[in-house]
Structure formats: C-alpha cells, structure tokens
C-alpha cells in the first residue's frame, strides 16, 4: 500500500507541472456550461415560472448542470487512457512486469493524483462560478444525503477509471485506440447524462439507459445530490453502481491478462 502512496505523491508533483494547462481547461470548460445554463434559462422563461420539464424545476435543472461539472472535475478520466495505451504501444509496461508494482493500481494512484491536482487548480474558477449561481443552486437536505453523494461519487470515479483502463488495453490488439475511445465516449456522453439529465428522455428509453453502466458515471451521483433518488431506490442504486465497478474492474483485469499473453514489448 505504501508504495502506491508514493506513486500518488509523485503523480501530484508531476501533474502540478501542468497546472496552467489544468487551469485553462477548467476555465474553458465554463464556457459551454454557461451556454447550457442560459439555454435552459431561456426555455424555462418561455414556459412560465412554475414550469417543470421532465419533472425538474429551473433550479433543479441548473443545479444538475452545475453539480455535473463538479462531479466531472472530481471523477473524469482525461489523459489516463491515452497514456496507458501509449505505455502498451511503446513497450513501457515491460518494467512493471519485472517490478513488484501492479500496473492497474499504479495507474489508479496516478489517476487519483491527477484528479486531486485538477480539483485544487479548478477550485477557484469553479468556486467563483458556483457562488455566482448560488441562487439557483440546491443543496442536499442532510448529512446522510451528503454521505450517499460522496459514496456514489467515489464509485463513479472508480467506474470511469476501470472502463477507461479496459478500453486502453485494446492497444494490445489494435494500433490506434483513439477512434474506439471516441466512439465509446460519444455513447457515454449521452447515456451518462452529460448532455442533458436523463429525466428528459421518454420513460422507456430512460429505463433502457439505466441498464447500461454509463448513468452510474455521472447521472446517478448528481441525481443523489439533487435528492431525486432516495430511500430504497438509493440503496439499490448504490449496490448496482458497486456491482458495475466490480464488473468493470474484473473486465479490465481480464483484458490485461489476455493482452499480456500477446504482448511483444515493442521497443521496450
């Protein structure tokens, strides 16, 4: 365990070197967010103050996008999948086969370090932004809801990471994984609720989406935060999210083991 703390520390230092890049990313990311908030503001304004769309009030809709941005900052995989694929392609993983370091945990430590750094850097612009929209921001009702949100957030981050790891492991078989990553990302963008809350979908379609792991990457934690998922639904949701995390982890492990059998250490 200690060695992975060490990796985490190294990752922090490494990522801090790119703090300007992170800051620019966080700042640029606010532009489409602001566009979305204004777009929904205009749509609600056209329907009267008390309007609800898909069961969401204006405050809930705006909070959805704001909190989704926070969840995204805390849990999104940005560069890790490209780096893993590059490590495989360039033969850099050979050294991990010789050392008592597990590559999956090594990458997870780096991922955690990357998120920690990103949040540190993005806290200021994102914080100012949230404060600016404080009138529209809804808060969890009590400590239990905060706790459930925190838990689902951690599980969402793990799910994102393991799925990305599995996808990057395709580099054992194909030369160029970026197209695959982008194709999956496109589905993820819709089904995770990145583009709009899944409540807006027709009920049948929403149920189909909830059968995939994607909503548990973003939609579910935000929904827990907003208090739209409570009681029995919350418990079963968290259990299902945990099950997806385990499945994604097992899948990543499986692909990795199969890939190593094919691995030829090109250039390593």
């Amino acid at each position, binding site marked *: 365990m200690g060695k992975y703390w060490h990796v985490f520390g190294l990752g922090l230092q490494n990522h801090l070197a790119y703090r*300007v*890049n992170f800051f*620019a*990313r966080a700042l*640029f*990311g606010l*532009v*489409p967010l*602001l*566009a979305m908030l*204004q*777009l929904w503001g*205009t*749509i609600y304004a*056209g*329907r009267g103050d008390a309007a609800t*769309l*898909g069961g969401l009030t204006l405050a809930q809709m705006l909070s959805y996008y704001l909190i989704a941005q926070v969840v995204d900052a805390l849990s999104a995989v940005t560069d890790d999948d490209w780096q893993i694929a590059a490590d495989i392609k360039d033969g850099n993983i050979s050294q991990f086969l010789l050392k008592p370091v597990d590559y999956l945990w090594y990458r997870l430590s780096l991922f955690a370090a990357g998120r920690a750094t990103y949040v540190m850097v993005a806290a200021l612009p994102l914080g100012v932004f949230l404060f600016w929209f404080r009138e529209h921001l809804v808060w969890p009702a009590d400590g239990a809801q905060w706790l459930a949100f925190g838990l689902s957030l951690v599980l969402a981050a793990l799910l994102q990471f393991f799925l990305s790891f599995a996808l990057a492991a395709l580099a054992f078989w194909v030369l*160029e994984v970026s*197209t*695959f990553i*982008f*194709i999956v990302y*496109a*589905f993820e*963008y*819709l089904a995770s609720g990145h*583009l*709009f809350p899944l409540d*807006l*979908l*027709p009920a049948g379609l929403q149920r189909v989406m909830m059968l995939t792991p994607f909503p548990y990457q973003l939609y579910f934690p935000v929904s827990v935060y907003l208090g739209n998922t409570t009681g029995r639904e919350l418990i079963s949701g968290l259990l299902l999210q945990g099950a997806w995390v385990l499945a994604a982890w097992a899948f990543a492990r499986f692909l990795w083991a199969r890939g190593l059998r094919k691995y030829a250490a090109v250039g390593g």
Partner: protein
Amino acid sequence: MRPPNAPPSPAPPAPPRGAAARYAGIYAALVRNSLAREMAFKTNFLLWIVVELLWLALQLCFIGVLYRHTETIGSWTHWQVVLLIGASNFIQQIFHALVLINLSNLSELVRTGKLDFLLLLPVNTRFIVSLRQVDLGALVNATVAVGVMGYAAGQLGLRPTALQLAGFGALCLLGVAVHYSLMLLLAAVCFWTVKAQGIVWGYYNLFNIARLPDEAFRGAFKVVFTFALPMLLVSNVPVRLLADKLDSGRPVLVLLAVALLCFVVSELGWRASLRRYTSASS
C-alpha cells in the same frame, strides 16, 4: 510506391505562370499527398468518419429531446435549429478539412524546430503552415451535413432562391474564415508557451456555441460571443438568411465586419508570433 487507388502522378512542371496558378498547382499536389496518406490507413480513415457522424447524431438527439419539452427557443423552431446544426457542422467540417490538423500540429513544429524546413520553402509561410495537409474525411462529413440541412429545409418547406443559396454559401465561407483566423491566433500562442496541447480542446469548447440559436443568449455572454468571438454569428446569420429569419441586413454587415477584423488581427498576431521563433537546438 503508390497505393493502388491513388490518383495519377502529377503532370511534368509547367512553364512559369501567375502566382494564383502556381499556388493552385502547389495545393493540388498537397491534396494528392494527403489522399495517398489517408489511403494508407483506410480503416482508421473510415472510423474517424464514424466518430464525427456519431457526434452529429448526438447533437441532433439533444435538440430532439429539447424540443420534446418546448415548442420554440426564442423564435427558433425545431427544424430551424436542425438546419442550424447542419450549417454549423458544415462550416466546422470545411474548416477541419482545410486547416484544423495543420494548426494543431503547429506547436509540434515549433517545439521540434521542424518549422525551419517550412520557412525555407519558396512559398508564403502562412499558406504552407495552414494548408499543408487536407483532412479528406471531413469533406465526407461536410456532405452529410449538407444532407441534414436539405432534410431540415424540406421539413420547413423552404424554397430558397438562387440568390439566397449563393448568399448562404458566401456567408458560410466567411464563417470558415472566422474560425480559421481565431484558431490561428490560438495556435500562435505556442510561440510563447511552446507546450500548447490544451488549445484544440479549448477550441472545441468555444466553437460548440456556434450551433446554438442566438436568441437563447442574453447579456454579457451574448455581447462577447457576438462581437469579440463571433461564435453566435458564424452559423446563425447564414441560416437566418436561408430560413427567411433575417429582419434587416444588419447581422450580415456585422458578420462581414467582424470577419474582416478577425482576419486582420490574426495576420498581425501571426507576424508578431513568427518574429519570436528562434528554432530549436539542433
């Protein structure tokens, strides 16, 4: 060695002609080169087209879901916004086809000092830096965008006159010019910071606004993205012309003025940046 389906070899060099003809000849050679390069990785070429089509489908999906819950955004109806998405995609894909890869490669050229070789060529440097490689997949996607526009126009029952179509085409080209000028300025930042990978990512965020209807926005946001970074003009104005949503000629004039301004600023910025180039240690 030439891939089997590459076009025939270029004709032997013709005697000296005018500058325009000379540059046309150079560009034809660049296009042939890009085609040969793409055909070396056919699967990848096709997969990238699929990726872009998926993102277009995603945008249409978003608008479809949005209009399940509302009739209009400002005065924009569902099929007008679909037309807008088609047009903004068309403009963006043309921009991708002609210049995007070249500008995103610029920071790499500066970092490694490979820009030296381009500076030494007996052609205009901005020309060769901007247009060296053509992304042919984007041209395929541009035709799909035209299809989307055609379908939306059919749903709206539009019967555009030849003049409207010509104006629409010209305004779209103006939009491409705006994207190009702004992206060149962004890319030129690498002459100062060297590492500028985040730039293409930043570009996507900014330019995403171009496919949303202008009436959704108010206040400072609208002012900034109309006059400073004219994202709310580049595709909204041509679509307004095509869909008979233009009350006066003013938006067209504003787009024209802002495009011209962007072009001048980018040329000045480009010259200032190039002066900072010191090559890399070799």
